[in-house]
């Protein structure tokens, strides 16, 4: 069976390394509140933007913003999606079935966690939940799929 939506196998290693590095960097910047210390201001185009919580909304306008987090988030998301959907070395229908299975479970688990957080996290800390929700499904899917593939590759040769 041919699949057209997967990325070539050679993307896997490079996107995997890039994803892990950029994700660790992003999480540590966010957790230790370092985005303020590494600023690089630039004029960016905003569909909707405002300064701080009480500023007026600028609609379809150019606004000034530090782009360090935008660049990092772009690297995390692009490399994450490519890594998650790169072809395996021996891509066959069973790998596809494992991928689909992992994706389904990742979606269910992700929305389970989100619903839990929605019901039990209130106020400003909820912003952290929203931040986590940006990446959670991708992360859960990658972990689940890699674990299942590890189990798949390490099955003992059963021959007589």
């Amino acid at each position, binding site marked *: *069976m041919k699949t057209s939506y997967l990325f070539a196998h050679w993307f896997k290693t490079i996107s995997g390394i890039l994803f892990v590095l950029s994700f660790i960097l992003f999480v540590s910047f966010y957790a230790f509140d370092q985005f303020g210390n590494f600023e690089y201001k630039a004029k960016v185009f905003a569909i909707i933007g405002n300064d701080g919580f009480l500023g007026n909304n600028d609609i379809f306008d150019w606004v000034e913003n530090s782009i360090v987090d935008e660049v990092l988030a772009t690297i995390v998301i692009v490399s994450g999606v490519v890594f998650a959907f790169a072809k395996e070395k*021996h891509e*066959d*229908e*069973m*790998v596809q*079935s494992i991928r689909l299975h992992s994706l389904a479970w990742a979606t269910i688990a992700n929305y389970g966690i989100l619903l839990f957080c929605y019901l039990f996290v209130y106020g400003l800390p909820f912003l952290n939940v929203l931040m986590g929700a940006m990446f959670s499904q991708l992360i859960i899917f990658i972990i689940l799929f890699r674990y299942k593939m590890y189990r*798949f*590759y390490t*099955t003992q*040769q*059963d*021959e*007589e």
Partner: protein
Amino acid sequence: MKNNIKVQRAIHNLTQQDLAERIQVSRQTINALEAGKYVPSTVLALKLAKLFDKSVNDIFELEATD
């Protein structure tokens, strides 16, 4: 679903790796098929049947739970 791929493979004197290469899947997939952990697509079932020169019904069999 039951299958007798392992028997057919022995008759044709193929290893799991040989069979995997002939029908363009991974060795682990053959392993999972023989262990009954994976039900192949119609395309893969037909490829196996063609390779073993049998009909699909001779290789695969429905079980009561299917």
